């Protein structure tokens, strides 16, 4: 082996499935002079790849994960390391049968075909050693398979080497990462130092330790996944290959069983969460097996033995079949269950490609390589972006609490609105105690406790009766209340006060500030001081990077207001645009300022009672902001609306928020003011107005034109994604964002059912709809529109279906329901002329 180079274009640390995929795709995209190091030997350096069970089930309720998985399988097949065997997810309980139907919907929504719900008898036919008497149904994916991930890694490394792009160094341990002026400069190893401007940490479980060397954080924890191999199984005596029988996922007991040659592998996500720190992982020399194959703790598996015996009694119950190998295998778990990808916010040039499992490895390697080379990936990775983490997300206690809570949900039935119970009350708004007194039901957004609805508004439910569109089915009543719809209706009559403290706020200031915001924003930012501009932010290829509001507070002073969930990534996006000459600065004001929304027909009356400033339509036009005095407080008021009614967002220093709440609350009593939760703000008010949401409708995979949000004119100044956007304006869009109305909610049992989002839209003959770019049509958002008396869905539809009045179907939990395209484009269904907002 040649000597370690002293410099490289890029150093990739780690030679598991992730590092190997990454070096190959970087080479394929044209990068050269790549150096890969791993402290372990090749081809199995001792990380999680080496003990992975290597099977791939395609369907996930996350589109991002499903797409990464599908792309990974495509690559595994191309490398000829994929053995298709089929897989069946088993339901033992009625609740799981419903969940399997939901998986069926996700399969159709995200384009995974040939899946089917099968009977216990069919399960038995496919897998004769299952006891079908305890099975209620199966979700069969014939295209499930097993890969040879070590072989795949070797192939990808070799390809990159053959291209003359890569040198790999095994048994080379990274001792330090050198950072200067916020940039990565070099990787110090036990074999020498390599200078590099780009370094990727693809070290699985060890990634947090490597990141800390550079002063960055990769908030994951090694967690144990237990598995044991039993055999030889007489039934498998004649098996030829690695796998011939479909893999069983026994979902209700959080376990899987798969034939492995003459043996049966039994794996579990049911045991108590067993979390380790990186320091607790033995070195290669200290470990009895590999470092990530820790000693099996049988006591944690006792119940799982019994569950395995139940589902496969003939094999597992055979006393001649012994346990040959059992490990506590370490895997990377993150506090929100998603991978950690992208350039670290702390250190320029230092990238993370961590918490990636075998099933999404090559797809992730490709996507991150695209991101590094082109500035964005074909598959939208926003939910995996390392920039998503807020400071409190990086604490060990948070990571441990959330992973411990979610570990047993690996195979769990997780409601789309499900809330974490652990590590709550981390970020409290100044209104928190008032909200508690009003019976707020809190949901969490990036640590902030946000009222979703208020029990104090419960009497309104009776007042509005059926107009609140009550739900009887348990699934869509879970994490929901009719009070949300009642709050909505009352806000439309009087006014509502909304806690928006979770907004991410940052100021861009300095002589270069205008240039920065012009670069990011599609809309013209060289506007008069006091203007508020809602603008899309595009990726280089013209997809949505974000949508947000920018206030021009001074000639050289812009305030960006964006959602809490995605705000940190937005902040990094803007920070990366700051000119090198220091002529613009960014300052995060999220924790310094609170935001209170006040909307409804009485909003002006209430606020006017508290201020001598002119709040008339002429005196305070829509789309403007300025400081007004409310009692003793100086408050930045911004006249915009995300709920479709007259009103303001009010910004003021955090510590003064409670006083503002009290002033408004008191003044509002005579006018029927109520507290309104995020259920209205985020869903019902938004959907009636056709407002799009980032992460739902708006993703890099869709364009401004497809979302129907293109401006009449494109500003003359340059902005990111402009060239692509100009081209999109010339093309016929592949799909258009539509609002659909559910025409009949009645299920086969006569119960009314309400979709929650991510369901597939089908033609009247029940076929999935695919646009010419290969994207499926599915509900990007779903929710009540109480003022319209309707349940609305949003979906991108190909032009032939994107015609108002078109009849289609939506599939929900195994049944279809008729829907009609109610709107193509952005004109709201409720108050289409925006008379209420402009009152």
């Amino acid at each position, binding site marked *: 082996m040649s000597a370690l180079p002293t410099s490289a274009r890029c150093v990739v640390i780690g030679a598991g499935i992730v590092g190997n995929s990454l070096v190959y795709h970087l080479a394929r995209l044209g990068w050269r002079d790549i150096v890969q190091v791993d402290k372990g030997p090749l081809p199995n350096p001792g990380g999680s790849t080496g003990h992975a069970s290597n099977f791939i089930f395609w369907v996930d309720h996350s589109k991002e994960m499903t797409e990464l998985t599908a792309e990974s399988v495509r690559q595994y097949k191309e490398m000829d390391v994929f053995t298709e065997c089929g897989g069946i997810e088993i339901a033992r309980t009625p609740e799981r049968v419903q969940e399997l139907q939901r998986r069926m919907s996700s399969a159709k929504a995200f384009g995974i075909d040939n899946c089917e719900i099968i009977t216990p008898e069919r399960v038995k036919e496919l897998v004769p050693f299952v006891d079908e008497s305890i099975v209620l149904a199966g979700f069969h994916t014939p295209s499930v398979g097993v890969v040879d991930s070590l072989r795949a890694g070797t192939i990808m490394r070799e390809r990159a080497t053959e291209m003359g792009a890569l040198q790999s160094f095994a048994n080379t341990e990274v001792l330090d990462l050198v950072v200067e002026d916020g940039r990565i400069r070099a990787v110090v190893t036990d074999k020498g130092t390599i200078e590099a401007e780009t370094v990727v940490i693809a070290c699985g479980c060890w990634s947090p330790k490597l990141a800390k060397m550079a002063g960055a954080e990769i908030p994951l924890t090694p967690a144990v996944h237990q598995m044991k191999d039993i055999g030889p199984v007489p039934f498998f005596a004649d098996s030829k290959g690695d796998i011939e029988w479909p893999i069983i996922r026994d979902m209700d007991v959080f376990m899987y069983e798969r034939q492995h040659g003459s043996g049966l592998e039994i794996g579990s996500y049911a045991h108590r969460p067993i979390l380790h720190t990186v320091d607790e992982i033995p070195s290669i*020399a200290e470990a009895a097996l590999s470092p990530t194959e820790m000693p099996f703790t049988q006591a944690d598996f006792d119940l799982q033995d019994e569950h395995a015996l139940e589902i496969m009694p003939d094999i597992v*119950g055979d006393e001649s079949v012994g346990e040959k190998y059992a490990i506590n295998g370490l895997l990377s778990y993150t506090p929100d269950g998603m991978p950690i990808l992208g350039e670290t916010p702390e250190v320029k040039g230092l990238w993370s490609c961590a918490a990636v499992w075998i099933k999404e490895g090559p797809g992730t390697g490709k996507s991150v390589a695209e991101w590094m080379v082109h500035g964005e990936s074909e598959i939208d990775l926003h939910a995996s972006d390392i920039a998503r983490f807020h400071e409190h997300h990086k604490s060990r206690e948070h990571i441990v609490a959330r992973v411990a809570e979610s570990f047993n949900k690996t195979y769990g039935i997780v409601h789309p609105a499900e809330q974490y119970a652990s590590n709550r009350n981390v970020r409290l708004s100044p209104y928190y105690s008032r909200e508690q007194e009003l019976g707020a039901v809190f949901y969490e957004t990036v640590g902030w406790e946000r009222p979703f609805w208020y029990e104090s508004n419960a009497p309104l439910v009776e007042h509005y009766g059926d107009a609140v569109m009550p739900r009887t089915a348990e699934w869509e009543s879970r994490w929901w209340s009719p009070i949300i719809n009642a709050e909505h209706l009352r806000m439309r009559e009087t006014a509502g006060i909304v806690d928006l403290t979770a907004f991410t706020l940052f100021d861009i200031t300095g002589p270069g500030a205008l240039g920065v915001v012009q670069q990011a924003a599609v809309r013209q930012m060289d506007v008069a001081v006091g203007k508020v501009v809602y603008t899309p932010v595009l990726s280089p290829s013209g997809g949505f990077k974000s949508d947000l509001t920018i206030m021009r507070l001074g000639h050289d002073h812009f305030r960006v207001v964006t959602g809490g969930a995605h705000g940190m990534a937005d902040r990094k996006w803007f920070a990366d645009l700051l000119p090198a000459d220091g002529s613009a600065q960014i300052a995060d004001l999220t924790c310094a300022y609170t935001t209170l929304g006040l909307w409804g027909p009485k909003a002006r009356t209430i606020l006017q009672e508290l201020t001598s400033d002119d709040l008339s339509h002429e005196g305070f036009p829509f789309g403007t902001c300025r400081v007004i005095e409310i009692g003793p407080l100086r408050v930045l008021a911004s006249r915009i609306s995300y709920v479709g009614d007259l009103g303001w967002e009010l910004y003021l220093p955090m510590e003064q928020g409670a006083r503002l709440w009290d002033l408004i609350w008191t003044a509002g009593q005579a006018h029927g003011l109520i507290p309104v939760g995020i259920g209205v703000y985020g869903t019902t008010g938004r959907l009636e107005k056709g407002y799009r949401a980032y992460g739902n409708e708006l993703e890099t995979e869709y364009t401004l034109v497809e979302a129907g949000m293109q401006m009449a004119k494109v500003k003359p100044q340059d902005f990111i994604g402009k060239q692509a956007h100009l081209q999109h304006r010339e093309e016929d869009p592949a799909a258009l964002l539509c609002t659909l109305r559910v025409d009949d909610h009645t299920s086969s049992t006569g119960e009314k059912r309400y979709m929650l989002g991510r369901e597939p839209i089908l033609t009247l003959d029940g076929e999935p709809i695919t646009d010419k770019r290969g994207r499926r049509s599915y509900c990007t958002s779903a929710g009540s529109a109480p003022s319209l008396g309707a349940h609305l869905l949003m979906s991108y539809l190909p032009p032939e279906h994107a015609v108002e009045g078109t009849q289609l179907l939506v599939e929900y939990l195994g049944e279809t329901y008729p829907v009609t395209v109610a709107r193509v484009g952005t004109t709201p269904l409720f108050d289409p002329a925006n008379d209420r907002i402009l009152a």
Partner: protein
Amino acid sequence: MNILVCIKRIALVGSQIVLTADGTDVDTSKLGFQLSPHEENAVEAAVRLVEQHGGEVVLITVGEAAAEEQLRELLAVGADRGIIVEAGGELDPQAVASAIAEAARADGTAWDLVICGNESGDNTNSQVPIRLAHQLGLPVVTNVKGLEVDGTTARCERAVGSEREVYTAPLPAVIAVRDGLNQPRYPSVPGRIKARKKPVVTVSAQIAGPRLQAQQLRVPAVTTKGVTDLGTGPDAAGRLVEVFTQIGVLP
């Protein structure tokens, strides 16, 4: 036939052993635990004898309560019950033998056979079987790689170089066995499920203070095994012959 099998829980180490900061013990904070060598064979032999003659296989270990993990492993392959003699810290072989002898008597069972692994996997003193036999007043055969019992006597084969010595011991007797004695079975899942219901009792023993105490442990310097690349193809042939001649493969 009532058989007592003596078990020792030891650390499951890799190629590099790490000591505690004070150097008196192996640092087990990152390690799992296992049985000492030979003990799976000891239990397998005992289980087969009981399957043949009836009776019970009782496991005994001296040390920490956590050794239940190892006892459950063996209960899963056919042992019937376990006794943990709780004792703090590492004991010397004399103290261990005394503790076992006391607990064996206190159990009240009339033992036909006591089987031990020939030596522990960590300290390898090879002392306990002999001292235990002495304390119990029983004959002892060590290094046993073949064992047959006819009801009143045990026929023991000892490995001596490439030869075998055969001893016949009257029962009851203490037999110290080595691996190769038999092919131990693996635990099955039903075996594990049954094992969970089998009794394990913890007793405390009056143990006289150890007369031997470990003062300091030292990890021997690692002798690196070098690999010499002799080249490839015909060019390497000459050097290969050289090496073969050196090591005596060629005259």
